[in-house]
């Protein structure tokens, strides 16, 4: 007796969550508007820990949002803009219906627009937060910038995306922050290290897209809206961090150039200027002239608890990175017309090389095929008519492999018409026990500075690996060990039995003394066996739950080992 009866689902986790429909009703938004809002504000559903409790006892599949998130959306100014837009559309329709063209014009002029600046600031309170989340933005912008100007999205969006991606690439070139490149069947993956953050993006190959029908472009467009804003602000900040002019201007070769020409440059219309920028062949203008900029030698302060070894390793890594940044310095490349120009120009310029192409391919070529100082000509066709004797004709994969290997690889494997060595992903970091493709081992050997001729060491490594595998096998065999022993015993017994029988039958035994065999007791092995048995017995005593977990882990491990073993056999 006494006290009010507690009602169910009026406290606790049930009140912390709200279903999507209820959230939508609370915000008084249509589903598309709600979707836009969620995308822009970065609101996503949460999976409650106890779904049944939150769902008020029902187990129906529902998506839940945090109530706090929805409350937070209530005060969003964008929501008001959405409503305004709805009204605008209604008025416009009405005006059209009444054929009041002046009203239509007036309404169109006052079309409500909104800005996303405050949302960006709110979602990413610090610049590093924004950088961390920029992967998706880059992928999306690179994709949109390759769209044809069909009706899939606004032309302005495509242009903006193109502009932002060109700005980004120019920044990466200027800061020399590209680290890895990977040619996949999907597109080209790039990884750059910007302010300590690893940023990976993928660029599709330059083909026209066949637009799938089951993709909602409105969702993509909303994301792009957000991402272009984010990428613009990030670019601005990055450019200013490098003392570059934003929006980027091409460096006009110092003061020597006559003023008029630069005037002319400025007069150039924006599109062709963008094209020139996107050629990626010229360096960018700086706010402060770059001559007096010097890399300050950073002192290394070992933090406490960090031993010398680690520090040395870090120093070595830094050195390697510096070397990688100057990988193509002093080399002069010429791109044939059949290779992907933009990607190659980007990669070459990121590592300090000089690059040019045929004038008819793109604006911005700096020298001709006939230039005698060209060291490498990138070519992707089976044969070429006229060859210059003082340059290498190589296939484009060489460049990418060099970048990933961080050294200039021997060019022989990449000559014209030669079957290319496999292209490996630089993103895979093999742990112990993983399968390492032989090509990677070769590359690692090259990195260590060994000649490709002596392959003995590799073999040794492989042998080592095999040895490990054998050990594993042995362990597995241990299980069968006891049985084998038993078998031996059985055999001995049989022998004895036979002798007994013979004796009982009264036959004289063929007494024959054979020298006994010395049974070599392998101490190490015995110890190992003992250990293995101990382990097995201990496993017996495991609790049910732990046993299950243990079995699962071991299953995964064994599968991995099996895969590693079967892969090279193919």
């Amino acid at each position, binding site marked *: 007796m006494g006290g009010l009866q507690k009602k169910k689902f009026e406290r606790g986790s049930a009140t912390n969550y709200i279903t999507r429909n209820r959230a939508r009703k609370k915000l008084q938004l249509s589903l598309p508007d709600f979707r836009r809002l969620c995308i822009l504000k970065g609101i996503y559903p949460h999976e409650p820990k106890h779904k049944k409790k939150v769902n008020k006892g029902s187990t129906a599949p529902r998506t839940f949002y945090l109530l706090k*998130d929805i409350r937070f959306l209530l005060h969003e100014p964008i929501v008001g803009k959405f409503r305004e837009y709805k009204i605008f559309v209604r008025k416009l329709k009405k005006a059209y219906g009444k054929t009041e063209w002046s009203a239509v014009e007036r309404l169109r002029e006052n079309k409500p627009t909104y800005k996303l*600046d405050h949302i960006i600031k709110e979602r990413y309170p610090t610049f590093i937060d924004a950088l961390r989340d920029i992967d998706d933005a880059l992928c999306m912008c690179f994709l949109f910038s390759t769209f044809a100007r069909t009706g899939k999205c606004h032309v302005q969006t495509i242009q903006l995306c193109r502009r932002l991606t060109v700005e980004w690439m120019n920044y990466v070139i200027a800061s020399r922050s590209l680290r890895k490149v990977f040619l996949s069947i999907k597109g080209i993956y790039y990884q750059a290290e910007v302010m300590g953050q690893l940023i990976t993006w993928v660029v599709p190959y330059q083909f026209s897209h066949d637009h799938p029908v089951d993709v909602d472009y409105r969702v993509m467009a909303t994301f792009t809206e957000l991402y272009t804003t984010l990428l613009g602000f990030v670019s601005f900040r990055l450019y200013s961090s490098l003392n570059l002019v934003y929006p980027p201007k091409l460096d006009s070769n110092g003061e020597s150039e006559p003023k008029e020409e630069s005037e002319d440059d400025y007069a150039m219309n924006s599109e062709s200027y963008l094209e020139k920028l996107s050629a990626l062949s010229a360096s960018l203008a700086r706010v402060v002239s770059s001559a007096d900029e010097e890399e300050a030698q950073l002192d290394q302060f070992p933090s406490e608890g960090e031993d010398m070894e680690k520090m040395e390793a870090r120093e070595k890594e830094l050195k390697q990175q510096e070397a990688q940044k100057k990988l193509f310095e002093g080399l002069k490349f010429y791109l044939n017309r059949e290779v992907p120009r933009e990607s190659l120009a980007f990669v070459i310029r990121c590592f300090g090389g000089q690059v040019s192409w045929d004038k008819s391919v793109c604006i911005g070529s700096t020298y001709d095929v006939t230039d005698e100082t060209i060291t490498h000509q990138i070519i992707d066709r089976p044969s070429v008519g006229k060859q210059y004797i003082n340059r290498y004709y190589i296939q484009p*994969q060489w460049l990418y492999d060099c970048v990933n290997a961080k050294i200039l690889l021997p060019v022989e494997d990449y000559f014209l018409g030669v079957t290319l060595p496999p292209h490996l992903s630089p*993103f*895979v970091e093999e742990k112990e026990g993983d399968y390492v493709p032989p090509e990677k081992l070769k590359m690692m050997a090259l990195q260590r500075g060994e000649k490709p001729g002596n392959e003995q060491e590799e073999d040794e490594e492989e042998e080592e690996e095999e040895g490990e595998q054998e050990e594993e096998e042995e362990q597995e065999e241990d299980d069968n060990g*006891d049985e084998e022993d038993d078998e031996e015993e059985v055999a001995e017994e049989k022998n004895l039995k036979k002798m007994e029988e013979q004796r009982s039958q009264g036959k004289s035994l063929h007494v024959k003394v054979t020298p006994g065999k010395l049974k070599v007791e392998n101490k190490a092995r015995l110890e190992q066996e003992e250990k293995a048995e101990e382990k097995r017995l201990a496993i017996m*005593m495991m609790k049910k739950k732990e046993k299950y977990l243990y079995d699962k882990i071991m299953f995964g491990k064994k599968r991995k080992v099996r895969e590693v073993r079967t892969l090279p056999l193919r």
Partner: protein
Amino acid sequence: MERALQQIFNFNRKPADEDKDDDLSDSEDSVYSGLEDSGSDSEEEEGSDDDEEEGSDDNDDKMKEKKEGEVSEEKKKHEYEHDSSDEEDIRNTVGNIPMEWYKDFPHIGYNLDGKKIYKPIRNKDELDDFLDKMENPEYWRTVHDKQTGSDVVLSDDQVELVNRLQRGQFGDVNFNECEPMVEFFSSDVMIHPVTNRPADKRSFIPSLTEKEKVSKLVHAIKMGWIKPRRVEDDGRGRYYNLWASEDSSILARHKMHLPAPKIPLPGHHESYNPPPEYLFTDEERALWEQQDPADRKLPFVPRKYSSLRQVPAFSQFIHERFERCLDLYLCPRQRKMRVNVNPEDLIPQLPKPKDLQPFPTTRSLVYRGHSGLVRSISVSPSGQWLASGSDDGSVRFWEVCSSRCMKTVQVGGAVKSVAWNPNPSVCLLAVALDSVVLILSPSLADKQVILSSERLLSAQQEGEEPAEGNGSVVWSEAEGEELNQGLRLKIQHPKAVHQVVWHAKGDYLASVMPDNTSHLQVYIHQLSRRRSQNPFSRNKGLVQCISFHPIRPYFFVATQRSIRIYNLVKQEMTKKLQTNSKWISSMAVHPGGDHVICGSYDCKLSWFDLDLSTKPYKMLRHHKKAVRGVAYHRLYPLFASASDDGSVIVCHGTVYNDLLQNPLIVPVKVLRGHVMTHDLGVLDVTFHPTQPWVFSSGADATICLFT
């Protein structure tokens, strides 16, 4: 069509008619002119024709203009008077009807005065027509007027007109069709207005409606309904340093924020030119195609292209981006603590078996001789002899150390259970087969012991008659040959006996007759008094096995799923142990009496601490198949379990005197030595009473000793 042609002819005929008017009757003319007076739409032309006749041909053009003016005025007068084409030619008033209707009449209509118009008296027939055609040179220009029934000869002018019209020319010869157009309204501003009307008043005073409209707009602007034209600003492409002031005010939301996981980086599989081992084999390819897209290990098929220029566009690129977008805003997120468990840490830390010695480790002796599976074994309290009962109907006695079969007793039935009397001062063996419990005196001891055991058996005989109160159990002496074999007593039970056990003192023994339907499942026999009694009056389930408490007067009964402990003195149940297993197979009581182990057919071995709980203190699931037998060692902290998987697992089980410390259970050895036959492995297990040795009997008709 025909009608139109007729019209033309009518039209053509008119001037002819006029020409003829003079020749023919005056009346007609007058009729015609009168008609013109009355005025008609169609008379325009006729009028013009008249004019033409009147005026000269030279000033035709001017005349026409003038005429038009007149006509238009005339038209205005008579515009709506009539609109009938019937009255074109009203010499005959019948109207525009097929003239066949008057075929049978002498007349063909009526004139304006209502007089009949008669047909010409002489009708022309075909012959006349033909003659006319041949003779009359005017025939080709003669037209038959159906309405008047008379023939009309066309004049030259009329013929000319017809010809012109047939050629598609204007009827009037003098009409110039290529005359330059005179524009009435031209681009030139004339000095005179088109109309000479004075301006309206409303063009001098301000408009009210306009004023209303303007005031509406002004009001709307004042109220802010109409906004002034917005300044065009391209805010979308304008960026600034957004993070200029990095305030560290982190919203509460950011604490709850779960950043979306990044897209996993591509592996070697995804390369355009992967190492050959990463490409799919045919089977893998087939498997990939069969699998549901959600189950696939890779979302794409690895491919190899020999050069970069051959790489095509990836068709799923937009799809993948879209999926990612959907994941970002639709996928519910949850923070999951991923425990990175080292599997070695999961293995419990147990004392090393090496430190827990002694325990049996190797098979040292095998006792062969039985031809059927050995169901039960028992070791004499001295530890010198081993008795075994087998399905081949024999009980064998073995010397433990030499594995020699000392004695074989044929009992004539599959032996279910053998039990050696635990009292060291007597040497007796209880054997259960079919529905009999036999007491054997194997005389495998020194004389003293044999004598004392004989005395125990015969003591009762001398004393008093066997109490036959319990009619279902019959005690009888063995006779003749059986006596020689060592058989002493037969205790006949009503049903098949499965197990027989001794009390620690050696005077009482209990037997089990599993039967689900009756309460007569357990009997306790007193050997010295040859008395049997059924301790339970109610059936509590199928009894599997029983055991006496080694020290105190307790009695353990294992039914299918639980173990009941009865106090024999107070005659009541003291405890009921829940085993959590499906079907108990065997049970053993610790020599201290406070712990029980129990094996079950569902591969479990449960250890009960009677002081702790009625639930198992520990469940061991180390056997792969049904557990058949369990046993405690009398002295050493060891216990063993035998299973159908052919193994005997020996565990160390220390029991502490300190009540607060739980028993320590460590498996120390897995013993294998029996061959699986008929899916049966080891059937019974028992320890040596003094040595850390364990015996096991198997379905392969052997008994093994592990030391």
